[in-house]
C-alpha cells in the first residue's frame, strides 16, 4: 500500500500505491505509515498521485499518523494530490496542519531547509 521510492538524509519519499483509500483500508494505511516512521525516523514525503478516491476514514488515519509523527518530532508532508482531494483537505482546513507541495522534488527542497 505504501512503497519507499527515494530516501535522503532527512526524508523518505513514500508512494501510496492504491487508488481508493477508504474505510476498508484506512487502518492498514495508518499502520504502514506509523511503521515507516518507526523504521526510518525521518520526515515522510507521502506521494498521493495514484489516489483517486478518499473518504473521511482515510483522512482520519492520516491525521492520526501525523499526530504520531509530531510526537516523534517528525512530520508527514503531502505531495501529488489530485485537485479534488486537495479541495477536500482545504474544505475541512487540514491544509492548516499538513504541509502540501505539488511535487516530491519541491517537498525535498523544502525539507532540506528545515
Amino acid at each position, binding site marked *: 500500500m505504501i512503497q519507499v521510492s527515494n530516501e535522503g538524509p532527512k526524508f523518505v519519499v513514500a508512494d501510496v500505491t492504491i487508488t481508493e483509500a477508504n474505510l476498508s483500508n484506512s487502518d492498514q494505511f495508518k499502520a504502514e505509515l506509523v511503521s515507516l516512521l518507526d523504521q526510518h525516523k525521518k520526515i515522510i514525503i507521502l506521494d498521493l498521485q495514484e489516489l483517486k478516491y478518499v473518504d473521511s476514514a482515510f*483522512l482520519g488515519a492520516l491525521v492520526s499518523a501525523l499526530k504520531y509523527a509530531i510526537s516523534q518530532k517528525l512530520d508527514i508532508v503531502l505531495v501529488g494530490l489530485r485537485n479534488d482531494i486537495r479541495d477536500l483537505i482545504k*474544505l475541512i482546513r487540514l491544509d492548516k496542519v499538513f504541509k502540501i507541495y505539488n511535487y516530491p522534488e519541491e517537498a525535498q527542497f523544502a525539507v532540506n531547509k528545515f
Partner: protein
Amino acid sequence: MQSSAEKMVFNFDNSAEKLVSSLEYMLGYIAERTPAHVDPEDILFRSKVIITELLTNGIKHAGKDHTRFDIEIDNELLVIRKTDSGSPLYLVNSRQTAEDKKLISADPLNSLFAIWESDNHIRFASEEGSLDDFLSFEQVMEHFGILIITRSADEFTYTWDKETSSNIFRVQIKF
C-alpha cells in the same frame, strides 16, 4: 423542488467493495442532469464528497440491510436522501431542554453543531475555529464525516422516523 424534478432510487448493499462503483453511478446520474447555468465542476465535487461520506456511513452504521439513496434534481435544487434501518443517531436522545443547539465537536480548525428543529429532526451547522487557540496538534479531531457533508451542503439534516424505524439523512445543494 419543482414537480418536473428528475428522480432516481439506488439501493446500496453496504459493502465497501461497491463504494466506488456506487459513487460513480450516482455521480453519473447527477452529471447528466446538472442544469446548464450551474458550474458542473463545483456541483460534482460537492456531490462526490457528500455521497462518499453517506456511503461510508452506510457501511459503518446501516447494518445488514441495504441503504436507499434518493436523488432529485431540477433547475434550482439537488437533493440527496439516504435512508437506512440502522440504530438511530446517538444525538436523538441527547436533546437538552433549555438549549436546542449543541456543540458536537470542536478543535482549533472547526466546530460542529447539532440544531434540533424538533425532537427527532436535527440540522447540522459548522464554523471555522480560531487558529489562535491552537495549543497542541493533539487537539485536532480525527472524525470528519458529518463535517465534510455539512461544509459541502447548503442544508444537511437528520431525521429519526419512529414509525418506520428509519434514519433519514437529507442533503440539499442550491444551484
